């Protein structure tokens, strides 16, 4: 039997960790998609995803079900990502800019495991690198909007719920972010 979110949330609120495990496994990749786009580092992103679910569990009693569970989780994850970036900036011990060429992010299909056309691999890798670089140039708020819309496919209404801003703000941020992404990639050739 596959339970819906509402049922699992209710069970988790009653202390059922198994129900919470199902929720974690249901949403971990979706949350990671946004966080990895926000932070551009695999290990940092996993740390923030873990913290997201830990916070969610600890605050589960406060979740009233007025919004979808995943919009609530996205909200926690994005706030934690922004906090994480601020903290890392302050510390400046570890360079934040660990993009694809040197960092941990390596998409499937860009490692030469044999058999693939190396030219395609190089092109894919370059393209992915440029996309992440372009994303990096956006402010965290613009980054969050474009990731929630283009990667996660959330509606304007859902994004406004996640970010706690009006739909007009969502549309304006999305317009700016798309244009910036388009221009950056066009400049990069």
């Amino acid at each position, binding site marked *: 039997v596959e339970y819906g979110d509402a049922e699992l949330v209710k069970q988790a609120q009653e202390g059922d960790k198994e129900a919470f495990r199902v929720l974690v496994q249901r949403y971990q*990749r979706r949350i990671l998609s946004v966080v990895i786009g926000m932070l551009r580092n695999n290990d940092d992103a996993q*740390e923030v995803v*873990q913290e997201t679910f830990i916070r969610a569990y600890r605050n589960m009693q406060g979740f009233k079900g007025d919004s979808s569970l995943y919009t609530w989780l996205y909200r926690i994850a994005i706030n934690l990502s922004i906090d994480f970036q601020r903290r890392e900036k302050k510390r400046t011990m570890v360079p934040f800019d660990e993009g694809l060429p040197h960092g941990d992010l390596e998409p*499937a299909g860009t490692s030469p495991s044999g058999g693939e056309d190396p030219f395609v691999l190089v092109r894919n890798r370059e393209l992915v690198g440029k996309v992440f670089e372009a994303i990096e140039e956006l402010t965290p708020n613009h980054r969050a909007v474009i990731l929630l819309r283009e990667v996660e496919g959330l509606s*304007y209404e859902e994004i406004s719920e996640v970010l706690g801003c009006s739909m007009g703000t969502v549309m304006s941020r999305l317009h700016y972010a798309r244009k910036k992404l388009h221009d950056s990639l066009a400049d990069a050739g």
Partner: protein
Amino acid sequence: MMTCKDFVERLDVYLDHRLARDEQCSVDGHLHDCKACRRLAGAYQERQVVLRTAVTDVVAAVDLSGLWGAVHHAIEHDAPVSRIAGWRLIMSRVRRYVAQRTMPVPASFTPLRLTAWAAAAAAVVIVVFSLGGPGGPGAARVQVAEQTSPAAPVLHPRAHIRNVRIDSLEAAEGHTVATWTQTHTGAQVIWVADADAIPGR
């Protein structure tokens, strides 16, 4: 009659499929006739796909099998995330450190293969020396081992050890990881072993 300016103003709602039916017809008509707007819309749509694919591919390559275990441990023990992620974080920082200093880390260098690493390292022990200052409070005895990976630099005899600068030494979950630099050559080494394999600890 829709103009290019009208289309550009509606580009976002067009991309998000939120146009009203009559507007959709006007946009379709305009795109049919205007090559420049068709090209612009195509470029934006391509960016959407590239972004989605890039992130999806990156996420697909991430192993999340340990995530629930870490979360469960934290909520059971009321532990902060930094503790539960201890070993993985140490490894990531070692990889990060080494990557920044040009030495390639073998792809096989993952926590899952630590036992093999430890065994290989222990087999080629060269010398034992003190760390943290003689008799200092943080002093620990560490075996310095030659790495067997062909991609890694090799530490040579005792004389070279004198020129070693220890960059980090961390222990977690029964393993110890040290990174050091040979000051005269600039070569970096990472060394992993079971904590039990270190004498004097």
